[in-house]
């Protein structure tokens, strides 16, 4: 049996994304193809489905077959229930956690200028889009939140760096009305490749099946 055939069957049968490593481990120990062979099979499958209405896509937790986005007007007609809508408050909270992680609830409230409702935090935790990665060593030991691979999967992304780039904060020009010219704090780089985030990305998130 050809490796490509097996990999394709596995990817269709698994109802969650599969990494190259996971695919390899399905093979018996003595007959395991190496990662390159699996990867070549995957690439060939991707090519095979280029013109079909389904595609093999890399998301954060691995490769998965999915119906192409262009088909969604048709496919959504299959399901009577409307997809959930998310409030601006939830999306903003999620964005802050994604870009500034790890953050406390206080940090989020600071940026948004309003308190964060418990419902929003619960929804994010409940959907396993966000999780507690630790506690900040300040009074009250508030929880530190980070985003998960599940969130990226949900948004069809394979890594945090595929998120829309956050605009850099412009340097504040000397205030027109003040004569102070003290050097500005250089604006923090908003790139999402801080060591902390990379660590988070590398961390295996033991996916729970819903």
């Amino acid at each position, binding site marked *: 049996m050809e490796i490509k055939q097996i990999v394709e069957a596995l990817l269709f049968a698994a109802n969650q994304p599969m990494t190259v490593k996971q695919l390899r481990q399905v093979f018996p120990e003595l007959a395991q193809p190496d990662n390159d062979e699996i990867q070549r099979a995957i690439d060939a499958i991707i090519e095979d489905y280029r013109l079909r209405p389904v595609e093999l896509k890399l998301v954060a937790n691995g490769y*998965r077959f999915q119906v192409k986005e262009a088909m969604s007007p048709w496919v959504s007609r299959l399901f009577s229930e409307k997809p959930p809508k998310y409030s601006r*408050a939830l999306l903003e909270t999620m964005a802050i956690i994604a870009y500034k992680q790890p953050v406390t609830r206080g940090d989020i409230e600071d940026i948004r*200028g309003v308190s964060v409702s418990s419902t929003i935090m619960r929804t994010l935790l409940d959907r396993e889009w966000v999780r507690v990665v630790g506690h900040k060593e300040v009074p009250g030991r508030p929880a530190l939140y980070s985003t998960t691979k599940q969130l990226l999967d*949900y948004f*069809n992304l394979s890594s945090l760096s595929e998120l829309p780039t956050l605009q850099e904060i412009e340097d504040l020009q000397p205030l027109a009305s003040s004569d102070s010219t003290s050097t500005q704090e250089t604006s923090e780089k908003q790139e999402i490749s801080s060591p902390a985030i990379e660590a988070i990305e590398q961390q295996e998130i033991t996916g729970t099946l819903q």
Partner: protein
Amino acid sequence: MNLDSAEHQLQVLPLAIVEGAPLSDLPEDLYIPPDALKVFLETFEGPLDLLLYLIRRQNLDILNIPIAEITKQYINYIEVMSDMQLELAAEYLVMAAMLAEIKSRLLLPRQSEMEDEEDDPRATLIRKLQEYENIKQAAEEIDLLPREERDIFATFVDVSNVKVEKILPDVQLKEMLLAFQGVLKRAEQLSHHQITREPLSVRERMSTILENLNGKNHLIFSQLFNNTEGKYGVVVSFLAILELTKEGLIEIIQSEPFAPLRITAATNAGSSTSA
């Protein structure tokens, strides 16, 4: 999106009577008519959002906002809100105080040349506005990303012809009950969610009746009772029928006096039971 709708409303909605009385001293530079103020709290995600709206609305540079003018507008909003006795989140008032402070500081000659940028409340405010605006934009863009349930759909390929039985996660009853305990605790906090204490046998019977009704036009009332269950069973069935009627899930129909009672699935719209 919200800004657009707010602007849209302002063009469409006429000045209106607020709580029975016409609102006479509406500040002229207020950009939202009184009707829209009612949705104010839902439209804006907080004081920063409102400030951004005021700034963007006038194509002002965020780095060079006329504090005095913006403060005036902002405070006008807040005043109208409190005139209308709308419950205002404390954050809006804190911002008003901060703006007022900045305004007064700008009027005063600088006390000390050593004053840090850090301490300049205006710089802090501008920074916060920028940071919030960036997040707000990013959130809007994230909302446009293709996502599961809406744009991306999973594929289902049947594997039932696979010989080995799929091992499914095991659940202990206690795990489920503990999860439910959590739900109950939360529901207690949100006191408006009452979890009623219907005997479970009644709820179970409700399901059975509905299922029996599925695909059928009606059931005869008397058929819903099984004499072999004894008095208790009859009471359970009866309570289930009453509860289903109360929840509007079934209707009890008698076509003429002394005709047998019939139970049908409730029909508000056309009764199309075929999927």
